[in-house]
């Protein structure tokens, strides 16, 4: 008698976190032992404003089920206005997702400061649950 173990869908989440605030916030979450799902793969970028929309679209069409873009709160960007650029680009990305057959809920822009460890963990937990409800990306055959 074999036990059929059903593989529950575990989404692949990519978090692009800016070096100065968000990545530090994620680091603090780790040091503080705030629990959040292991589905999240964090990629450190120098500024959320350096994330080209192409990176997000490519991630979502090449294996990621959800992408979060994390940056400094408005006014706090280490490079002055990089996060504002990220905000405008995030608007463009959200507009384009349906063109690629992707649900808008697979992408999110969030502000996380260096001291917001618990908030980072909460954000990742909620986003992972949201993407899990959506199911695998349509690009996964």
């Amino acid at each position, binding site marked *: 008698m074999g036990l059929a173990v059903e593989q529950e869908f575990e989404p692949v989440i990519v978090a692009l976190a800016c070096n100065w605030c968000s990545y530090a916030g994620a680091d603090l979450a780790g040091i503080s032992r705030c629990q959040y799902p292991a589905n999240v793969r964090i990629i450190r970028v120098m500024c959320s404003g350096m994330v*080209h*929309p192409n990176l997000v679209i490519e991630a979502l069409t090449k294996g990621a089920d959800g992408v979060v873009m994390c940056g400094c709160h408005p006014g706090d960007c280490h490079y002055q206005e990089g996060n504002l650029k990220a905000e405008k680009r995030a*608007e463009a990305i959200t507009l384009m997702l*349906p063109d690629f057959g992707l649900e808008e809920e697979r992408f999110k822009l969030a502000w996380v400061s260096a001291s917001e460890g618990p908030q980072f963990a909460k954000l990742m937990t909620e986003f992972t649950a949201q993407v899990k409800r959506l199911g695998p990306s349509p690009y996964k055959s």
Partner: protein
Amino acid sequence: MAARLAEEWFAICGGCEVTILDIGEPLLDLLEKVQIVHMPVLMDHKLFGQTGEKTEMEIPEAEVGLISGGIRSDEHKKLAQEMRRKCKTLIALGSCACYGGIPALANLYSTEELLTKVYRESITTDKNGFPHEEVPALTDRVYSVSEVVKVDVSLPGCPTTPEMVGGALTALLEGRPFTLSTKSVCDECPTIREKKATSTLRRRLEPAEFVPGAPLNQMRCLMEQGFLCNGPATRSGCGGSEGTPRCIRAYMPCEGCFGPVSEKANPMVDMMGALSTIGLDPKQIPDRAATFNRFSGAGRLRPAPKR
């Protein structure tokens, strides 16, 4: 010994063939080095034999093959495969052959929708059903030549430039490699860029701000002036040895006719990124898929999902 040259054209306008003529005097030297064995626009060499005696379309063997136009019918597909078999080096001439071109805008609709619109709903057409006798079937969508057969040299442009065709053919005949630029139109554009838009998005019905006759490096970047210039997402090369992109020379925003900067690039995503980065609102563009993929529809445009 002259190199044999064969040319075919598919879903075309004929502009790229005119461009071959526009090579001008150097064409006379080039023509001495080639022997044209098949070219429908120019000579009466027939596909089914000179008296129609053959049952399959046949193209003679050639060292160089030129194909213009995208693939829109089964006949185009068969001819592309025959050209590939018979020609040692195959050149995709113009953006239609390279990326689908303007005809590939049809990929926004299913063939059913296209045929219905043209043959059933068009007020000025007698409704006699879709043509099907002696007419090759449409392919399910427009394909670029490179999607159907292996292409050795791509010459984008709508039309391509005389310098590019002449340059590519000469290089091939002399055994030298021919490569395309890997830069975008912005890299060859002399206008003043300050990375911030001075206006909201505007249509081309308004003229840009410039001094007629003044050097282009005194004009402000057209995208920053609010016009949809496809420069950031378009491969450079239309300016040739002179450098300045053709449309910019005419104080007009880049159409994007040289196609994407690289084969895997996504012009729509690049343009949406470029516009939002300088502060323009991409929500105002009613048809972004077609606007930013005007010449690169094969493989990039598909029918919009029905809501």
